[in-house]
Each structure stands twice: as C-alpha cells, then as structure tokens.
C-alpha cells in the first residue's frame, strides 16, 4: 500500500544516520574552529604589521558572502542527491529480491542496463552537490591565495620603500617574513571547513529526511478494550494513490465468524488493513462497543494472517512464538492443519526458516501464518483468504478449525470460499462497481 520501496526505508534507517557522521564529527567542530582561528592569527600578526592584519581581515568579507551564496544553492541539490541515492538503493534491493524471476525470463542484461542508468543518475546528482562544495572551496582558495599575495606585495613594496601611499608603519625583514608565514595559516581553518562542506550538505539532507520520516509516524493510540461489537456505517476507504472503496456497512458481534466477500481486487484486503490502521478511512464511521473506533487502537488484541505471510529467518518455533504459545500447543495446531508430515520430515519446530522461506509451498506458508495468528491467543482474528492455496480436504479442516475458534473469538475473514461464506454469521459484500 506504500509508495516507497523497502530499500528506500532501509537507506533511510542505515545510510542516513551514517551520512550525518561527517557533519557532526568534522563540520561542526571545524565551524567553531574556523570562527576562532582567523581571529587568533590576525591578532598574532597585528603587532608585527597592522596593515597586513587588516588585509587578511578585508579578504574575509567577500569570502563569507560567497559561501552564503553557495550554501543556498546547495541545499536543494543535496536533497535531490539524497533521494536519488535512496531510490538507487531501493532499486538494487528490489532487483536482487526478484532475481530468480529476472533470470527465469533471461532479463538480467536489460536489468543491468537499467540499473546502470539509475546509478549514473545518482552519480550525476552527487557530482552536482560536490560542484557546489568544490566551488565554495575554490572561492576560499582564491581569497586565501589573494590574501597571501596581497600581504607579500604589501610587505615587499614596504621594504623597498616604493609604496604608492605614505608608509603607515615601519617594517623590517623579520616582521615582514613573520606576517607572510602567518598569511596561509589565516585561511587554514576555513579551508578545512570548505573541505568538509559537502559533509555538511549531505548531513543536513539526511537529517531533514529523517526528521520528515519521524514526523509522519502515527501517534501512539491509547489501547482500548477488545471490542465485543464492531460496526461500520458508510465507511469509505481511500488508498494513497486515490482509489476509493465503499461505502461499506457491517455489524460484527463477537464471538463468531464474519466474512468480507467480493470479487478479486475489490478491496477485501484493504478493509482488513484499514482496521489495523494501514489504509485511510476517509468517510463514514467505525464504532467499537458504541464508541468511535480509531483504526489501529485494537491492534494489541488482533491476531493477523495476511496474504503474504512474513517469515523471519530463524526457526519455525521462533516464527510461531511471536505469540506466547508453548511447544505442545504449536504442535497440536500444526498437526490439525495437516502440517504434521511436513514437520516430521523437516525437523519439527526446530525447522530452519532461511531468508528465502525454505522452499515452503504457498499452502504451507499460509497455514503457518494462520497458526501464528491463532496461537497468539488474541481475541480478534483478521484473516485474509485463510483457505486459499489448499486442496479441498485441507481447506475443509481449516474451515472446521475456524468454526471452533469462532465460538470463543471474533474471527473476520476476507474470502472467496463459498463454503466458508456459508458458515459465517454475517457477510460484508464489497461490490466491484462500488469499488470503481
């Protein structure tokens, strides 16, 4: 339901904090140092030659102006760079995840070309950020060089007695040499600062991106008691992309089995997602025990089994134990679902789930997800197509199991399964025409 890619979020979580490192560790201390060091150098030069010190100070003003001008142009570019890098990272992760599919269709060369284009785009954006940083560095270099040159020329002409104006001070060779040696040091702090300038740009862009991400975090909802009655009146759901679903009405009273029905793509899954706060409710009202229901506020009481079952790398036990069930309960429910033979062949609850899902079939994954929701012991179950991907006999055992559970809990299932629909207490139909 989200517009962003997993890899983009990953980039934000991992790379963005890293990008602030140079900003905090180098740029900020240098900014402080660069404010103090020119003044110290100028104070040191002052007793030797007032004019040389004044020359140093005078070249500082246009430099600061240049830096300010460069800074305003930089921020936008740095932001674009941050986005391009995040997108690139998202694309790479996505293409790696889909690699078996890409290979099966022999599309790896086309994908490589496409990734090359994106990578070059990101490189171009990085370069345009650097261009500003280096330009400000060049401005600084120039004024640093100018300051050295002016001091050298002033001192030289003063020693020659050829100054075109009356000499304001008497300069001997020792003093002249001293201020000339100090002249490069006057700008050293600022030159270091300019070298860290692109760390400031990328750091600030990363901080802005993190701020934005933290800003859209949903507020923590006060937990409510698990609703015994859950009703919807004229509820319309709106996807971020603008698709509207509804208006929908339902009246679920727990315990019992309630189904959400409708043709494929009509928005059955979206309704379940809306209840846990993942899809926006734009119109209508949802009530829980006669009070207004804030989507997401009942999540601590909801056992969830979606269409795509998220399995974490680890053991099967670890995946099922997201609830608080013991081994006996886990084995009992898995056996009832007809997974006993699979378990026996693959090491029972210690079965290793790897990052590719360990070759579990769709039906097996679905039943593991369902078992996890049931084992959570929560009083409301939201199930998306609990009997899909299963042969008729297994689907029937799942239906019987759900009927049993529905005697003590509120079970809400999105389904096409006519037999499951037949045993439900209520139906919430989502019509394709309404959804359009």
């Amino acid at each position, binding site marked *: 339901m989200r517009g962003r890619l997993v890899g983009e979020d990953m980039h934000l979580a991992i790379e963005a904090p890293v990008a602030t490192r140079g900003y905090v560790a180098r740029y900020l201390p240098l900014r402080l140092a660069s404010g103090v060091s020119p003044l110290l150098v100028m104070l040191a030069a002052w007793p030797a030659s007032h004019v040389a010190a004044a020359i140093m100070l005078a070249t500082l003003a246009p430099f600061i102006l240049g830096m300010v001008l460069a800074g305003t142009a930089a921020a936008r570019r740095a932001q674009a760079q941050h986005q391009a890098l995040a997108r690139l990272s998202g694309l*790479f992760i*996505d293409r790696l995840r889909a690699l078996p599919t890409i290979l099966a269709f022999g*599309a790896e060369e086309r994908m490589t070309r496409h990734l090359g284009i994106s990578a070059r785009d990101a490189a171009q954006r990085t370069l345009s950020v650097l261009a500003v940083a280096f330009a400000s560095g060049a401005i600084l270099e120039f004024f640093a060089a100018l300051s050295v040159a002016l001091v050298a020329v002033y001192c030289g002409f003063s020693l020659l007695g050829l100054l075109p104006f009356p000499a304001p001070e008497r300069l001997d060779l020792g003093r002249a040499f001293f201020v000339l040696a100090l002249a490069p040091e006057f700008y050293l702090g600022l030159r270091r600062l300019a070298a860290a300038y692109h760390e400031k740009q990328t750091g600030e862009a990363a901080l802005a991106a993190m701020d934005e991400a933290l800003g859209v975090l949903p507020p923590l909802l006060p937990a409510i008691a698990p609703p015994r009655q859950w009703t919807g009146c004229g509820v319309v759901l709106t996807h971020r992309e603008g698709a509207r679903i509804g208006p929908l009405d339902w009246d679920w009273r727990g315990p019992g089995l309630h189904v959400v029905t409708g043709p494929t*793509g009509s928005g059955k899954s979206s309704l379940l997602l809306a209840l846990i706060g993942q899809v926006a409710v734009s119109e209508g009202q949802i009530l829980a025990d006669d009070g207004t229901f804030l989507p997401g506020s009942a999540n601590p009481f909801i056992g969830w089994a979606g269409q795509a079952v998220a399995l974490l790398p680890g053991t099967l036990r670890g995946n099922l134990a997201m609830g608080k069930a013991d081994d006996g309960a886990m084995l009992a429910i898995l056996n009832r679902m007809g997974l006993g*033979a699979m378990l026996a062949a693959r090491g029972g609850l210690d079965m290793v789930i790897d990052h590719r899902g360990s070759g579990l079939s769709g039906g097996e994954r679905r039943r593991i997800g369902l078992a996890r929701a049931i084992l959570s012991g929560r009083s409301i179950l939201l199930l998306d*197509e609990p009997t899909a991907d299963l042969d008729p006999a297994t689907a029937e055992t799942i239906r019987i199991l759900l009927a049993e559970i529905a005697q003590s809990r509120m079970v809400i299932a999105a389904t096409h399964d006519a037999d499951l629909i037949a045993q439900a207490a209520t139906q919430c139909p989502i019509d394709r025409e309404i959804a359009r």
Partner: protein
Amino acid sequence: MSGLLDAPLAGQKRALRWGMVCAGGAALAAIGLLGVAGCFLVGAGVAGLAGPLAVAGFNYLLPSAAIRAAAITRTAGRYGERMLGHRAALFALAELRAQLFARVAQGALNGRDPGRSGAMAARFGRDVDLLEDAAIRRVARVGGWTGGLAGLAMVGLLGWGAAMVMALGMAAMRLVSHWLAARLPALQAQAGPAADIAVYDLAPQLAAALESSDMARAEHALARAEAVITASQTILASVIVALIAWSAQGGAPMLALGLLAAMAALEIWAGLAAHDARAPQVRQAEARLQAMESAQTPHPPALTSNPALHIAGRDFAPGARILLSGPSGIGKTRLLETLAGLREDAPQVLRVDGIDPRTLGLAGLRGTFAVMTQDAPLIAGSLADNLALARPGIDRAAMERALWVACAQDIVPLDQWLGGDGARLSGGQRRRVALARALLAGRPWLLLDEPSEGLDRETEALLCQRLKQWLDQTGTGLVLVSHRPAMAQLAAETVNSAFRPDAANRQ
C-alpha cells in the same frame, strides 16, 4: 591498487588524465606562490637596505605577476582536480555497480545463492563507496608526488644537506603514516552487518543487535587513527622545516624561497597520508566485492526448440497439457519449480528433451519454460515494466492482448506505478499480472502454479476459457498446478505428484 576499478576507470580516461594534470598544476602553483612570495619579500628587504640604487634596479614586476598567476592557477587547479577526480570516480563506481549486479546474476544463474538482499545491498552501497577513495586517490597521488618532488627541487637550491633532510623527512612522513595505519585494530571487519538486520527488522533481539557497539568502536578507532596520523604529519613537517633552516646554505632570499616552498610542499605531501587510515577498509571492501566474482558458466547443452517432457515415469509430447495433482504439501510446487530450474529438490525422475533438468540448471531451461510461481514476484516499476521483463521488444498491443487473456485488462493502466513488489495489487491481481508476463515470454511450455487462486468463480471461468483459446492458438504446452476443478479442466492428462520410489526404480 584496485583491480576491480581498472576496467570502469578506463572509460573515464579523459577526466582522469585532466584531473591529474590539474592536481600537478595546483601543487606546483601552491609551492610557487609561497616560494616566490618569500623570495620577493626577502629580495625586496635586502634591496631596501642596500639603498636607492638597488631599489631602482630591483625587478618587482615579474615576481608580483608570478604571485598573481600562481594564486589563480592554484585555485583553478584545485577545483579541476576535485571535480574531474570525483567525476571519474563516481561514474566509474556507477559502472562498477551495474557490473556487480551482472556478476551476481551470473552467479545465481550458475546456482549460487546470491545471499540476503540486505547484505548484498550493503555490498553495492557501502563497499562500492569505499572504493571511491581508491579512485580519487589516483588523482590526488599525482598532486602529492608533484608537490613533494617540486618542493625537494626547491630545497635542493639550499645545498645537498638541506635536500637530504627534506628527502629523508618526506620518507619518514610516509613510513610513520603507514606504520600508524597498519596498527589499526582488526575490528573493522565487523563493520557493516546492520543493513541485513534492518531488512528483517521486527524482532526485538534484532533491534538490540542494531545497538551493538562494535561498529561504533571500529569507527571510533578509525577516527582516532586518522587524527593521530594527521597530527604526526604536521609535527614531522615542522621538524623538517626547522632542520632545513638549520642545515641550509645560501643567501637570505634563497633561504626564504626554500623554506616557504618546503612548507607548502610538505602540506601537500601530508595529503598523501589522508587515505592511509582508510586503506585497510578499502582493501577489505575490495576483497568482499571480488569474492562475488563467479566462475564462467559452462555452456548448457542446447535443447531443441520445442522439447518433449518426461515427468515421473510418463512421457509428454510438445504441446501437451498436464495437471500435477495431489493434496496440499505433497510437493507439486517443488516438482514444478524443479522442472523450471528454480530449485533442485524434487525426488521424481524428470527429463527435458531427454536431459535431467537438475543438470541443465536455470540457464539451460529458461528458453523452454515460462513460469508463473505462486508468490508471483513483481519488480518495482510500472505494469509495463513488469510485462516487458518477459522478453525484449514487446509492444504495447501485445501487452494489452496478454493482459486480456489473463483477465487482467482492467486492473490498472499500463503505465501505473505498482510500488515495491506490486504493493498496490491484491493477491489475485498480482497472479494475473504474473500470468500475463508468462504468456508474453513466448516459450514452448507454460508452467502455472495456482493461477486462479484469489479469483471469483466468474472470472475464473472466463480465464479458463481465454487461456484454453490461447493455448490452442499458440500450441504451447502447459504444466499446471491447481486445486480448483475449473482450472483442472484445462489439462488433458494428470500426473500424481506423490513421490513413488517404485516408479523411480523402474527407470
């Protein structure tokens, strides 16, 4: 130093070459600026003391013009060095990223598990970024050496003793920097697992692992080493300048020129040490990236353009329509995916054109089978991007036709962005998009795993009818896994997917 970067950098020769020219020019100008300024100053001082005649004879135009020229050259040179060096490095790295992806793809085709996408993404991201250092270093090194040698030549004007001091001092600076960098703790090897964890974020123990301080410690050690190296270089440089002053011969203007030139040269020379602390990290990153290199693919035996199949004791001619039957969990998906070369663990005897698909691998089989797996993976992109995956050169009309056959013509417009892994689509819609993609591939056999799951009965009947018509028209063979009776009607023959060792033994 970096073999990985050689090929991508070869494409950036121009930028690289001009970057090096700029680096050398900037270094010379920096030394020239201070050297000439010092020489001018002292010469002027001496002339001023010597009286009006000496002042009148003193040529101040040339040195002051040289000072201005040096100031401008140094500025332009530095900017050019940085811009061109980074241009070469960044575009070479972009190229390298694409090459690495091709390499991973090749490895996966040879049956090598590409590993967790999080770890891989870290390789593509952080490890490649570390190589940036190695690339920019090539340009910076030219500046460092030019500056160092020019400084040495200027100091040489002060006599052999001063030149020896300068040369030995420069060598000492490099040795100390290398020695300090080599003493970095080996902790760095541990940096970088965080990306992997973040992908599978969720469980609290993983979140705790993210807070582990190993990485922070490694980074801290690195920062400390960099600071120590920088400080040691600065201290050494001042000691060297003092020693040169002590050992120098020649007049005051020469001394000023030599000393100021030495100061400027040593500052540039110290820049060479900036990369030393990162060098071990860069080497590790490079080793990790090089480990992704995969062996050349042995060419798979060529299959006939429309091969016959053999599945668990039965033979099927091209164009046959086969249902793999059996209860959930019996291994139908495993059988189908083994046939397609996506895995190897089905126990049944299988032959494609008389050859075991497990020996052919995905590389040998992908020209024969178009697969729609149950999870129907989609790539991030538009609907058209996903369909275009099937084969090169598919036009929009063909896409529309395939979507119509798959009953997916009304899902979304072709150019609609589908989000990561088809996040915008429902389970049934995804499968139909994946089905349309498989139809577009134009392979002699179509392998479908539960194509109608998530469909209502009416759509399923329509899909069945259109698919049958499509199979009739194209003569494509079908291997189908489905629990739904309506879909099963598509198949003319049924294979029981239960593994029977006796059937295998008969072979």
